[in-house]
């Protein structure tokens, strides 16, 4: 057991030190995230519409968290290919479950810290009165929706194994589609009818809907005082998200294992870049 924990920790250790070594870029990207979030939220402020401001804020915060989580996992393999270390990781006596668990643990921790930094930045720029919102429930939704996004990340992580160059491109396309269809900044009903079914298979749709209920900003009309819904009110969304996580994580591991086997038969693991 101790050995397995050390193996999972290997990825946390590696990713922590890589973050440390690239700290100036982390600062730049986080600064950009704060500014990007604020500019989106200011659209609501300019319209003097508190509901719109908070709707946009929930969208930008939740999407920021989930997309970073997804990206960190999805890009972990392409980064290893780029550095040429993938073969060494794959020939170590560590199971893929432990490997990807370690990567996901660090990705989750990094995403949480980054989200708090962005939140603090927003606090300085925008009048954020969240009194009355169910913030504990918000945290529960984040945790549950993370499972589904970890599963999606695992499936996307396999793309650079299939095609080192095209894989990273496909990951960005996939992420873009999620952003488009999940109702991050607008209700999914404004999408073309033919696109709307995709919203129902995106975990972000349910996470956003749940968070907006917990903030008390679902529906229309003036929002004077936030009255966040209790956690029980978002049980349907939580169950769907949990179900997606339960399906997507094992599916992601399965897909990864199959593609790894294929790459070892066809010689695709070799260093590129």
């Amino acid at each position: 057991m101790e050995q397995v924990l050390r193996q999972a920790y290997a990825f946390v250790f590696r990713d922590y030190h890589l973050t440390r070594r690239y700290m100036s870029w982390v600062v730049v990207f986080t600064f950009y995230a704060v500014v990007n979030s604020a500019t989106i939220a200011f659209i609501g402020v300019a319209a003097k519409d508190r509901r719109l401001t908070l709707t946009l804020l929930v969208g930008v915060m939740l999407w920021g968290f989930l997309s970073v989580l997804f990206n960190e996992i999805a890009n972990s393999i392409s980064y290893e290919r780029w550095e040429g270390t993938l073969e060494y990781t794959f020939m170590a006596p560590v199971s893929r479950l432990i490997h990807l668990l370690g990567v996901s643990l660090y990705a989750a921790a990094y995403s949480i810290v980054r989200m708090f930094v962005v939140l603090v930045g927003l606090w300085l720029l925008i009048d954020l009165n969240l009194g009355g919102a169910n913030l504990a429930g918000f945290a529960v939704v984040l945790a549950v929706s993370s499972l589904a996004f970890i599963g999606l990340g695992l499936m996307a992580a396999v793309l650079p194994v299939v095609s080192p160059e095209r894989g990273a491109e496909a990951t960005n396309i996939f992420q873009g589609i999620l952003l488009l269809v999940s109702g991050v900044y607008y209700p999914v009903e404004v999408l073309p009818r033919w696109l709307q079914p995709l919203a129902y298979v995106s975990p972000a749709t349910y996470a956003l809907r749940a968070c907006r209920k917990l903030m008390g900003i679902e529906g229309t009309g003036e929002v004077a005082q936030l009255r966040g819904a209790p956690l029980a009110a978002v049980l349907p969304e939580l169950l769907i998200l949990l179900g997606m996580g339960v399906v997507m994580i094992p599916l992601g591991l399965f897909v990864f294992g199959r593609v790894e086997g294929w790459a070892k038969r066809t010689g695709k693991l070799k260093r590129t870049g």
Partner: protein
Amino acid sequence: MTHPGISVLNLQKYFSKRKGVLRTRGTTMHALRDVSFEVALGETYGLLGPNGSGKSTLIRVLSTLLVPDGGEVRLLGHRLPGEERLVRQKIGRVSVDAAFYKKLSARENLLYSAYLYGLEARAAERRALEILEQLGLEGERFTDPLEEMSRGMQQKVAITRALLVNPPLLLLDEPTTGLDPKSKRDVQTFLENLRRTEGTTILLTSHDMAETERLCARIGFLAKGRLTAEGTAAELKRQAGAASLDDAFIALAGERLEEEGDAEKGAPDKVAPGEVETGGAAADKSSADEADEAAPALTE
């Protein structure tokens, strides 16, 4: 029950690629054809061959990174494919290109590797420093980022990584290519000591005749994916009626080592869709870093 360190019987590995959308055309590259050899426990065995001869493909198969298409492979008694997990616990590999996270320090890279193998950090750090000292790398460079180290230093860190777990089997793919004479000698002396003190079984691929003659009890000549001859250096020279190992290689493998695979340049095997053909040359290689891997040059 005793078993050889490495046992390879009729090993086959080929790579295929399809081109075109409507009228697909398949090409098949045979990287290894019916390769058979054994390495005794505690023996150092050398594989000599030009670029594109299949040396790195063979090392990758033994490292569990490629699945063979035919034949039998056993490492320390464990079968491949099938017992990858057991094999991975017992092998160390050094490749021609020292692949690391270049922004991380030697210490961070080595500790990451140690954790991957489930080692305790303090013990691993102690062992890493011991090995680096034996290889002639000063301890103060331990915390320097790899990107600030010379290729020779990086290669010494790569050898340290392979030896952290003290593996009974070491797979060395041109470990001294590109090193200066002093670093080369440090590595060679270290490998001699390692075999003597730890009884490590070593498979060494190289272009360097002198190095192979110095380190290896037996040597195999690999050309176009085939093992064309094997024996001690003296036996190979006698068999070829040659004065040097270089001349013996030309006589027995039918090509020069130093021509970087020029003799192998030519079209891959062309086969019709769905067919697999068993003749043809190995891949042409343009980069020394990618030496000997027939497939990716064609597939990427």
